C-alpha cells in the first residue's frame, strides 16, 4: 500500500499525517486525528452521518479519500461551538429537540449550515430537500426542520444587529 504525507487543517488546526492511498477522510479524521464527532453510518454516501465541510462545502467524508483533502480546510462538529458558546445551528437542535440518539446530528448540522450559507432564509421544502442526503431514524425530521429554521432566524438577527453576538443566546 502506497503511503502519502498530507496536510489538512481541521477546525483551524493544522495537521500533518501519513495515510494509505485508500484511507478515507472519515477514518483519517476519526482514527488518526481523534475527531470522533464525525460518525460513520453507511460507507456509501447515503446516510450523511459523516458529513463534514471541505473548504466550506458539505461533503460525505466516508467516500472521499484522505489524500483528496490534502491542503484543504476541514470543518467538523468539534469546530462548531466558539469559545464555549453554541453556534446557532447547535442551539436550534437543542431548543427544538432536533435530535434523539444524536448519531446523525453532527452530519445533519453541517449539512444544514451549508444550506444556510447558500440560502439564509430557506422555507420548509428547501430545508427538507437540502437534508435529503442525511438520514435520521429517530426524530421524524419535523423538529430538525424546526431547528434549521431556528438557526436561520438566529443568524438573521445577528446579521441585522451586527453585534456578532447571537441574539437570545444563553
Amino acid at each position, binding site marked *: 500500500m502506497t503511503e502519502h504525507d498530507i496536510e489538512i487543517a481541521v477546525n483551524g488546526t493544522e495537521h500533518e499525517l501519513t495515510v494509505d492511498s485508500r484511507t478515507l477522510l472519515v477514518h483519517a479524521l476519526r482514527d488518526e486525528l481523534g475527531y470522533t*464527532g464525525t460518525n460513520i453510518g453507511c460507507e456509501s454516501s447515503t446516510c450523511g452521518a459523516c458529513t463534514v465541510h471541505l473548504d466550506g462545502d458539505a461533503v460525505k467524508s466516508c467516500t472521499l479519500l484522505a489524500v483528496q483533502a490534502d491542503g484543504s480546510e476541514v470543518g467538523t462538529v468539534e469546530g462548531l461551538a466558539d469559545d464555549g458558546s453554541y453556534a446557532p445551528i447547535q442551539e436550534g437542535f437543542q431548543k427544538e429537540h432536533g435530535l434523539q440518539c444524536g448519531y446523525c446530528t453532527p452530519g445533519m448540522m453541517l449539512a444544514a449550515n451549508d444550506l444556510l450559507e447558500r440560502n439564509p432564509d430557506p422555507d420548509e421544502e428547501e430545508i427538507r430537500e437540502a437534508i435529503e442526503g442525511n438520514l435520521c431514524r*429517530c426524530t421524524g425530521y419535523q423538529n430538525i426542520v424546526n431547528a434549521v429554521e431556528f438557526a436561520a432566524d438566529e443568524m438573521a438577527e445577528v446579521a441585522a444587529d451586527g453585534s456578532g453576538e447571537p441574539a437570545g443566546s444563553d
Partner: protein
Amino acid sequence: MGIETITSDELDVESVLGSAVERREDPALITGEAEYTDDIQRPNMAHMAVLRSQYGHARIDGIDTSAAEEMDGVIGVYTADDLDVPGEIPVGWLLDSLRTPVHPLLAGDVARYQGDGIAVVVAEERSIAGDARDAIEVEYERLDAVTDPKEAVEDGAPVVHDDLEDNTAFDWEIGDADETDDAFANAAHTAEVDLTNQRLIPNAMEPRATVAEYKPGTEELEVHLTSQNPHLHRQLMSGVLDVPEHKLHIVAPDVGGGFGSKIHHYPDEALACWCAMETGRPVKWTATRTETYLTDAHGRDHVSHAELAMDEEGTITGMRVKTYAGMGAYLSTFAPAVPTYLYGTLLSGQYDIPAIHCNVVGAFTNGAPVDAYRGAGRPEALYLVERIITLGAREMGMDPAEFRRQNFVPEDDFPHQTPVAVEYDSGNYEPALDKALEAVGYDDLRERQAELREEGRYLGIGLSSYIEACGLAPSELAGQLGAQAGLWESGLVRVHPTGKVTAFCGTSGHGQGHETTYAQIVSDELGIPYDDIEIVEGDTDEIPQGMGTYGSRSAAVGGSALATSSQKVVEKAKKIAAHQLEASEEDIEFSNGEFSVAGAPERSMHIQDVAAQSYLAHDMPEGIEPGLEETSFYDPDNFVFPFGTHIAVVEVDPETGEIEFENYVAVDDVGPQINPKIVEGQVHGGVAQGIGQALYEGAEYDSNGTLVTGSMQDYVVPKAEHIPRMETDSTVTPSPHNPLGVKGVGEAGTIAAPQAVVNAVTDALQPFGIDHIDMPLTNERVWRAVNDAPSAEDGGSEAVADGGERAEDEPSGSDEGGEN
C-alpha cells in the same frame, strides 16, 4: 403547534414534572463529545472482521484460511472448529413445545442465511482484517432455500435445520376456538382479509459494535457494546463465554439508536470477546452497513388471514386470525415472544370483542433471525385489527369512525378483561378519537372527498385507533409465559453529603432522553433542584442489576423504580428530620424538599441539609443507619396500555400510484407526560418509522435467500421529504398500576401509523373497489392495484363517474355507504 422547551434555570421544583425542559443529553451530542462504541480506542487494540456466508443456504465443504493467515498484520483466523466456548446463542423466551435448534457462534457445516458467520479474522488494523477476511476461501455447496414463512411450513419445502423437517418452531394459539367458531356461525355479517406484514430492517443509524478487553490479572472482561440492555447482555454472554457475571463488565456508552435491534445477543459480540481472550489484545468489531442489513435481527414478517364477525347492527361478535410468522434461520433472543404473547394478546385492540381465536405458526426460513423491532408484535397485531375493523365498517356500510365508536370498550368497563389473556389497566377511547376527528375536520373532509371524486381526484382518510402493551410485567407472569428473565427494574437513589444526588437505573437509554426525564422524576419526588441530580445508566459495574430499555418500559418500570427509591429516601430523611427538629414523625410535613413541623413552619429542614446530617451521623434517631441512599427493585402489577387515534389524510394519483400526505394527526394517551417535548419527539419518530413501513420499507429475499435490499440504496429509509409534518395532541388517562401513572410512548407512533396510512390509501381508492394493498404501498403497487382492480377493466374514470360503484364480485364486503 409545537411545544416550547425551557432551560433548567426556568424550572422550579413545583413544576419539574410535566415541564418541557431541554435535554441534558444534548450538549455532548451536538458538540461531538459523545462517545459511541466505535469512538473507543485502547492501547494495542486489534480489529475483528467476520466472514459471512454469501449464500442464503449452503453446505460448507471446506474453508481455506491459509492465505489470510499469511498476510502481514494478521493476528489470528478462526473458524467454528477453533472456538472452545459453550458456544451457543441462547433463546431468552421459551414457549411450550418450542423447538430450539442450536445457534452456533460460527456456522460449522451449514450456513442457513446470507450473513451467517463462517470465520473471523483478528488483525492489527481494521483494513487488514477486512483484506484477510476477503482472502479466506470457502467451498460452498448450495442448497435450496425458503424465505416465505407460509411456504416454509408446506410439504416439500427446503429444510432449514435437518432435524426439523417441517421448519416449524412452534404452533401456538390463544383464545377460544369453539366460541369463536360459534360467533362466525351466528354472524349476520363478516369481513375478511389476507395480508402480509413485511420484513423490516431496523436501521439504527449507528451500526452495531463491540470493544472487548480481557484483563488476565483480574480475569475481568470489559466490554463496550451497542446495547439496549447491558445487564441482559451480561447474563446471556456469561453463559455463552463461560465467564462469571461478576467478572463481566458491560458498558453501553452513547448508543446511536436501537429500535429493538440492540436488545439481542448476537454471535459477533461473543466472538469479539472470545478473540480478546484468545489473543490477549483489546479487540474492536464494528459492523459495516452491509453487515447490519444482513445480520441485525429483522422485524415483522407475518403472513395472515383475518376474519371479523358482526351482528345485524354492526356490533363485533368475533375475530379469527391465522398467522405464519417468519423466524429466520435461528431463534434470536426474544424472538418467540414477539409473534405470540406480544401479538396475539393485543388482537382485541380498543374493542369489546366477546370471542377471539388466534393461531400462529412460527416458521424457520433462510433469512436473518427476526426479533423485536420497534413495537414488536404489537404493530403486527394493531395493523391487522385496524385493517379488519376498517373492512368491517365497510361491510356494514358504516362510517369507520362510528363503527369504531360503537365497538370501543366503554369508558366504565376498566379494568377490561379481553378474551386474549390481558386485562387493560385504564382507558377512555372516545375522547382521543374525537380530538383526532376534530383536528382533521373529519366531517368537512368527507364532504370534500365526495366533491373531489367528482373531479376525478382521490382523497383518502385513514383511521387507526390503536392500543399497545408496555412495561411488560410482573415477573411472575412473564415467567409463566416463558420469559427466561425477570421484568422488574432496579433504581438506586444516592443523596450525597452535599445534598446533590446520583441516581442509577437499570434501564439503558439510546436516544430517549432518560437522563432528563429521570432527573425530573427524582427532583419531583425529593424536592431537590433538577440541576443537582445526575442520572447514571448503562454500566453493569455502576448499577449491579437491571433489565434494560425496550418495549417502552423505561418510564413505567425504570421511572417507577426511581420514584419508589426516592420515596424511601424521603421516608428515612423524615425520621432524621423529626429527630433533629425534636418533633414526632407524625407531625412532620414534607413539601418541595422541606421537612417542617405541622403548625410551626419556622421549624424546618431541607432534605439536602438532612443529607449532610445523615452522613455526619452525630445526632441520629435510634436504630437509623448513617447515610442517605435507597434501592428498589420495582416489579409492576400489570402491563400498562397506552392508546390513541391517528388519522392520515392522503391524496392518491391513480395514474402514477403516487401518494401525497395532506395531513397527519396523532392523538396519543400515554398517561401523564413527564416531559411533553420528549413525548412529542418520540411520537414524531415513531410515526416516521410507521410511515416508512406503510410506504417504503421492506426486506426482500429472492428465492435463493439472497437479500436483494441489502443496502441503503435498495432499502428505502425515509428521508426528510418522505415524512409529512405531523400534528400531535394528547389525552391523559393515568395507569392505576404505577406510582407515576405513566404508560409509555416510544413505540406508539410505529404501532399506530402503518394502518392509518394503508386505511387512507385504500379509502382513497374505494371508487376502484380496492380494499387492500400489501405494504409497502410503493407507487408501483398502488398503480398495479388500480390497473388490476375489477372496476379498472371498464376504465377507472368510469368507475368514478358512476359514483364509486364497485364490481359485485369484490371478495370482502359490499360498498354500501361507499365513502368509508
